[in-house]
């Protein structure tokens, strides 16, 4: 585009006022901002001693876990949808016929390479049975590359560790459904039920 094109609209700064030219108000402005921050509350989290508090741990994308169902069996049906969806190709599944009558397949091997994983959450989105989920654990470290490949047992243990503070998706869906149908009296649906008789 040429400099003298009529499409260019030149925006010029407005002229400085007398107070701006004296530099004194700007000088004081900068100093007050500095002092305000100097005395303000510090936002640093002293990590190993205290941990970051998530407003909603359920939506955080941290370390994966493999959910169990009510009977403690692995929920995964080895459909490979998560491995297909994974953009980093970090999920490795070996499927086998399931030993239980109500399930066709189950994973014999379920490995996630945490060094390749980009924590995008696509596997969680793809899973049809809410078996793989991302937790709010974020301090992931290991001493070797092998240690960073999480196998099925490790992923299930992550579930055992986090299930109380972050209930699995299928459980949350079940609770929501029960609340909606009025099977459980909870804080959430008390207000609408009070409104309904008046209508």
């Amino acid at each position, binding site marked *: 585009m040429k*400099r003298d094109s009529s499409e260019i609209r*030149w925006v*010029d*700064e407005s*002229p*400085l*006022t*007398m107070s701006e*030219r*004296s*530099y*004194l108000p*700007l*000088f004081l402005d*900068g*100093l007050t*901002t*500095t*002092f305000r*921050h*100097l005395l*303000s*509350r*510090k*936002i*640093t989290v*002293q990590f190993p001693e205290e941990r970051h508090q998530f407003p909603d741990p359920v939506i955080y994308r941290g370390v994966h876990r493999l959910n169990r169902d009510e009977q403690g069996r692995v929920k995964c049906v080895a459909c490979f949808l998560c491995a297909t969806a994974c953009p980093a190709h970090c999920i490795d599944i070996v499927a086998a016929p399931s030993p239980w009558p109500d399930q066709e397949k189950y994973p014999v091997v379920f490995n996630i390479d945490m060094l390749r994983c980009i924590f995008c959450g696509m596997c969680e989105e793809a899973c049809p049975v809410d078996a793989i989920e991302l937790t709010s654990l974020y301090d992931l470290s290991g001493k070797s590359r092998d240690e960073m490949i999480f196998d099925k047992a490790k992923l299930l243990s992550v579930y055992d560790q986090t299930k109380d503070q972050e209930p699995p998706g299928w459980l949350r869906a079940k609770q929501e459904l029960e609340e909606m149908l009025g099977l459980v009296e909870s804080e959430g649906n008390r207000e609408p039920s009070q409104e309904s008789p008046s209508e």
Partner: protein
Amino acid sequence: MSFVIETCIKIAVLLGALMTAAAYLVLVERWIAAWVQDRLGPNRVGIPLTNIRILGLGQPIADGLKLIFKEEFVPGHVDRVLYNLAPILTFVAAVAVYAVVPLGQADLGIAGWAPVDLTIVPKFDAALIFLFAANGAAVYGVIIAGWGSNNKYSLFGAMRGAAQLIAYEIPLSLALVALACYAGTLRIDDIVTQQAQSGVWNIILHPLAFVVFFIAATAEAGRLPFDLPETEQELVGGFHTEYSGMRLMTFLVSEFLHMITAAVLIVLLFLGGWHLWFITGAEPVAGVGLALLRIVVFVIKVLAVVFFFMLMRWSWPRFRFDQLMALAWKPLISWGMVQVTILVIWYAWWEPRVTAHGWPSMPILGLVNWSGFVLTWVFTSAIARPHYNNRPRQDLVRLAQGLPYDSSDLNRENAEVCNT
């Protein structure tokens, strides 16, 4: 012989104190940087192999050890002699200033001993001139480092540093000339004693000289609104880009010493040195207890100024290079001239008529100086350019298109913008 021993002890104490101060001021600088950014700053390093953290006070030792044990890589393309010489020169220039810093005199109370002068070079008649010389020598370290590194970023940094230091030397000198003119002496201890005895610090009497001196001293120290020689965003590291390990540490320590020097000079010349009303007394000679108290007062004042320097770093953005030069050559030198003129007229015309340094001479001088300060500031603001033309310069555009140069293009363009 005892004179030599005395001087050696003074040098050892001062050098030790300065090195420790520089190391711990790095920690303070990091703390303040963190606090201003709503962080906590270094608070982990304490006593090794224990969990005792003592607020992170071990950090400077850890930093120092790290830099000492780091590999000292010397790039193949440098001029070895100049490259090795530069850190030494910088450090010597930074330390030499402290030879003339007066901290009063202490009477040890031992019979037959004269009061000990708490200055390395006591009763030095040309102390202010020595200060200039030592301060000006800092530019050698910068430019030799930049040249010897044989690297364009280093050289850019060195050129900027040289231009900046030379430009700001002039307002700095003018402020000092005004001060020497008022005090009638070049001895720093006399200037401090005068402030102590009259009880009126020079900042109260000479605000214009203080402002000029403060800005110029900040620029001389290369602190942030004026840290053009080593802008990380533009020049990698400026003149010390090619340095590492101990040599780099020497540069960084020298930089901190420059800042402390600036603070020390401001305190000595404008904030009354070791004097504090009702606490330290006014006579130069003092007993041991009072002498120590004076040192504490002095150190607290210096730390307060250093604290302000560190806050300044986060308060105002860095100047552009043309703004930096414009600030030195246009307002600061003019203000220094105004201050010198006021004091010269004072000395030549007014002072022979009344007694100097006392009633009613001093209040009148203060009044004249303050009104001069306010008027100068208002006048400078009034004539400052209210409008900046940010459009491409038409004359250069024409030139780039291969057309002949015509300076009227530039004038027309400016008139256009300024009239809208």
